[in-house]
């Protein structure tokens, strides 16, 4: 464990949506941290609260939703206490976000170069200086013919080029934290790999911390040193990627790992997790995973499981380990 204070510290983050159907808890008491220059991953099914967590950090949760509890501190600054103007400065200077579908997140009628330049604080820069930084950023993301890319409209670029441009727009400001929300989901497999290795490369090159959000554990494993697994708005397991990978403790994580295709291993039958995410407006009692859990016990229905430390830095929110690990909280 590092001695230095973490770059981003999220504690008991709770975000709820106040809809006509009732209150939906999209994120419940999420706690995690990111150290300077570290890449962490958040995995979970669609609807498990990953993206809302990311938007909560940026304070951009869409309308009926609100961050109702917890603390988010970035380098000691409490983001939830900032004014809208101060928060804007934080976004501009420190946090960049990369979104899932680059074709939607680029303004269709602005040239790519102009859009990347938008993120640069141009108050004290000449046009040429901005243009140069844009080209450098495009070169850093290994886009073929950066000059042409800068001069193109988004629809003139391929999906991979678009996502590279979006990453260029993020890195041009040299943020201390990049949040990448499913950055490779919309791309095909070979491009996925390129984008992931690009993210890894940039992390070391400009020492940016990365939060990588994905539903794909394999994607996380290739970039991140630590991983957080979310299920139904809650954190169910967290720890160093290798430990979680080798020794998944929570039955949900086991299920997630079981459903990954391994080309080297011929499986008779791909294991599929039964059931689907519970209704977050009325989550199940006790452990939220118990209706789908193959190892559910009586206690799982009755009481919410504690966070159990199974090994160094590796915790699981599950009754299976409550007896043998040290129970925290």
């Amino acid at each position, binding site marked *: 464990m590092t001695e230095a204070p973490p770059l981003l510290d999220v504690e008991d983050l709770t975000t709820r949506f106040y809809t006509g159907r009732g209150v939906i808890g999209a994120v419940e008491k999420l706690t995690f941290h990111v150290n300077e220059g570290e890449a962490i991953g958040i995995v979970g099914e669609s609807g498990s609260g990953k993206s809302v967590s990311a938007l909560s950090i*940026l304070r*951009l949760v869409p309308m009926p939703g609100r961050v109702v509890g917890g603390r988010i501190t970035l380098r000691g600054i409490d983001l939830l206490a900032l004014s809208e103007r101060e928060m*804007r*400065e*934080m*976004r*501009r*200077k420190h*946090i*960049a*976000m990369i*979104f899932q*579908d680059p074709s*939607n*997140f*680029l*303004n*269709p*009628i*602005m*040239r790519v*170069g102009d859009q990347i330049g*938008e*993120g640069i604080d141009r108050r004290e820069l000449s*046009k*040429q200086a901005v*243009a*140069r*930084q844009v*080209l*450098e*950023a495009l*070169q*850093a993301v290994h886009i073929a013919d*950066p*000059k042409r890319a*800068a*001069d193109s*409209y988004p*629809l*003139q670029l391929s999906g991979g080029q678009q996502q590279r441009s*979006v990453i260029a*727009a*993020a*890195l041009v*400001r*040299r943020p201390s934290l990049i949040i990448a929300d499913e950055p490779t989901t919309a791309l095909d497999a070979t491009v996925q790999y390129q984008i992931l290795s690009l993210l890894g490369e940039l992390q070391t*090159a*400009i020492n940016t911390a990365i939060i990588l959000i994905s539903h794909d554990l394999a994607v996380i494993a290739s970039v991140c040193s630590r991983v957080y697994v979310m299920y139904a708005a809650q954190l169910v397991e967290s720890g160093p990627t290798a430990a979680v990978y080798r020794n998944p403790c929570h039955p949900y994580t086991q299920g997630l790992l079981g459903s990954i295709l391994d080309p080297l291993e011929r499986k008779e039958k791909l294991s599929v997790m039964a059931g689907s995410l519970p209704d977050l407006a009325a989550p199940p009692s006790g452990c939220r995973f118990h209706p789908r859990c193959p190892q559910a016990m009586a206690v799982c229905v009755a009481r919410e499981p504690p966070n159990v430390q199974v090994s160094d830095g590796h915790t699981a929110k599950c009754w299976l380990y409550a007896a043998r690990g040290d129970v925290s909280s």
Partner: protein
Amino acid sequence: MTEGAKPEAVVAARADVAAIRWPAVRRVQDNWRRFCRNRLALVGLVLLVATILMALLATAVFPEGPFKITGGRLTAPNAVHWLGTDELGRDVLAGVLYGARTSLMVGFLSVFMSLALGIVVGALAGYYGGWIDDALMRTTEIFQVMPRFFLALLVVAMFGADIWGIIFVIGILNWAEIARLLRAEYLTLRERPFVTAARAYGAPNFQIIVVEILPNASSPIIVAASLQVASAVLLEASLSFLGVGDPNVMSWGTMLNSAQQFLRLAWWSATFPGLAICLMTLGIALISDGLNDALNPRLKEMGS
């Protein structure tokens, strides 16, 4: 600022910067090329330019003005009076040339006014929503339900027929349409992911409204505005035709009004101003069509 990129990349990038045609010049050239590809739009442009030339040439050709009696009453077109004369002996060509001035002025100034009002109101209402939207839209509706032509008549009758007054009235009558159109665009565009992306990099609201969203909403506005130019020209002509136009300014409507009684005796006194109205409004409509095609990036071809 640039410590992270590889040195050779930096050098290459610097060399490229010089070659880049970065600013708006390139964009204007592109749009112009696409506009020219549309033959009808070019025809429209020729018609509009012809109208502008007529307006510019008016004082040079007829320094004494359009109201001067220069020949006999209702003379047919001849070598001296190319388009004939009207019932008072005024040259029809002079009237058409000076009328072009009035029409252009009324058309563009009133639309400029309705655009300015409509864009501000529509953008704020659509972007912010909530009570701002409610307040602005109720106001807009008040302006929309008023019967335009009669209101214009009423205002002109009450405050006198002054060309600036007419421009103002037409502007006031038209902005609501622009505002509603733009509000609808903003309502959908503000939910688009690229707006979230802009917020995520810390863009202030003003920048999002003006730089990110407005260009995306521009096509319907440009088309509506150019149609409004045509309708403003027609409205002014109609007011003048009914005899409530500015009597000190020659306009095509005024000419038609005085010509109607002599339609059978002197076809030229009504035909030429009428033709001028037709061609100018047609020209503007064709241009608006061409602009829509040229400015809509979804129709822009891939590559070059």
